[in-house]
């Protein structure tokens, strides 16, 4: 390419093709994030996805509207190749419970960092005389993707709480980067797809972070109820039926015993939730054994001056990591 101000890197057809690729990535990301919101328990991640669905939709829309100006049908998405479709499909596979780390890594550590790098590469080569319509969209997308990447990094940092989680995140990232390399990136034209880095202090992303430090508050848990719930859990851990059965209202003993029959060997317990219904309390207790964890929801009511258990339901059972 010469230094002439009208020298260009992309033909009209090349630019349209790249834009169809961008639209493919943005649209698919929008749909994946939208689908994941309901499947993601952690509030900061759930709300991060909720914030970014609309940004991705607008990016896809802007690209889709630009296309007819480049002799291409409006709102058309096109992946660069089948390998890139495979890459996106792999990102989307993180849908099972407990895979929020993989979701955030897939979108924010790999896909968006690559998209940002591709946008920056395009902007560096787009001619400033005859490609300003594309450049303006690129500039907006770059600004917003930088914000997304920075906010995603903060949320991921909160999710990765130990070495095992860190190893999981790194392994998933490596696997996705390999798959992205097999596609030769979003442009389908590079040996090693670039991943842009974003310095956190270079972007204002605080508006994208909600409920980051929000945790369980045992406000509705009075001291006597806490003691009753703990004593009950200790009896379960010790497998002493007469002790835990004494906490249960007589009319509920059979049903509660039936539910507890599904519990295995237990070692520790922790109260993780307390909700109020008038004077009653609904408590969630996590019971951990050597091999499995159980989340039990219990309904406690005051009767004859003491807390009595009226219902107990196992709401979840998971293998220990």
């Amino acid at each position: 390419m010469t230094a002439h101000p009208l020298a260009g890197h992309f033909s009209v057809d090349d630019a349209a093709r790249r834009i169809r690729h961008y639209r493919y990535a943005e649209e698919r990301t929008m749909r994946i994030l939208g689908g994941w919101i309901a499947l993601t328990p952690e509030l900061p991640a759930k709300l991060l996805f909720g914030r970014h669905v609309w940004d991705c939709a607008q990016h896809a829309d802007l690209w889709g509207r630009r296309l007819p100006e480049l002799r291409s049908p409006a709102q058309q998405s096109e992946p660069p190749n089948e390998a890139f479709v495979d890459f996106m499909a792999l990102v989307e596979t993180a849908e099972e419970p407990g895979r929020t780390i993989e979701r955030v890594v897939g979108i924010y550590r790999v896909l968006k960092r690559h998209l940002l790098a591709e946008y920056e590469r395009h902007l560096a080569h787009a001619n400033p005389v005859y490609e300003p319509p594309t450049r303006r969209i690129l500039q907006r997308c770059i600004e917003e993707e930088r914000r997304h990447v920075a906010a995603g990094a903060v949320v991921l940092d909160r999710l990765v709480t130990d070495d095992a989680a860190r190893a999981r995140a790194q392994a998933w990232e490596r696997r996705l980067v390999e798959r992205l390399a097999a596609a030769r990136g979003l442009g389908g034209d590079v040996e090693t797809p670039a991943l842009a880095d974003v310095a956190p202090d270079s972007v204002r992303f605080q508006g994208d972070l909600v409920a980051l430090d929000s945790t369980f508050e045992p406000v509705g848990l009075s001291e006597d109820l806490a003691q009753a719930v703990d004593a009950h859990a200790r009896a379960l851990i010790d497998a002493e039926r007469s002790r835990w059965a004494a906490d249960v209202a007589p009319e509920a003993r059979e049903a509660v015993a039936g539910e507890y029959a599904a519990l295995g060997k237990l070692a520790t317990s922790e109260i993780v939730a307390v909700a109020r219904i008038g004077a009653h309390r609904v408590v969630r207790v996590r019971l951990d054994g050597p091999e499995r964890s159980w989340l039990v929801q219990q309904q406690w009511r005051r009767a004859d001056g003491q807390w009595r258990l009226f219902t107990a339901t196992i709401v979840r059972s998971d293998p220990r990591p």
Partner: protein
Amino acid sequence: MERPIAYDKLAREDRFVRMRARETSELRMAQGLPPMADLASRESIRERMHGIFVGELQAMEGAGRTVYDFPDAPWEFTMDMARQVWDESRHVEIYMDLLEHMGGHIGEFPESTILWRCACAEDAAARVAGVNRGLEGLACDVFNQLIHIARKIGDPIIEQAVDYVLADEITHVRMGSRWLNELTKGDPHRRRQAIEFQDTIDERFNLGGVRQDGAHDEVSISIAREARKLAGFTDEEIERLVKSTQRSPVY
């Protein structure tokens, strides 16, 4: 990813206690309380706010699923639903802050997933009729009343924040009306089914006589006639809703 997902896949942090709405109402009534929190005290306003907070969460999740579940729907429909996801995410934040403003916290009261279940209709037209017209219409009623109560108790924070949320909800109802018409154009059977779905949701959210046509401080949930008109409900639709509240069984 599955399309659509099963109701019970709705994911929550462990600090959320989930219960069926009917069970919670029965436990409240057994203690001499109204079936759902009214707006008679700061305590009950806080409880109502917690219910709205989880409702907004489910509305965000439902709109997100609509973006994912209907890839062949018109692009402008997807754009409207994506916009709604963003709006609902802000509403979640607003109600989290209002909950804190009222001295409450996340998980303080049980969550029912009745709203989410309504957002799982398999047809896009039924989903917008049920969610955007049925549930967002209910939101117009609830928020309009909350604004009135906030004004009455002299709380400008609640009044102004909820007024902005109400403006969004009115927009969402309009989106629902537009897409109910466009998605069912030339298909009267599909349209009828979508409207019937909305009717069942309206009926369910009359909450056994809790929603009524009446003054803000006299009924638990008052029908917001003006907000509903602004959202595009016809006089005939509003009257039909009023009639349906009169035949709903009381708890």
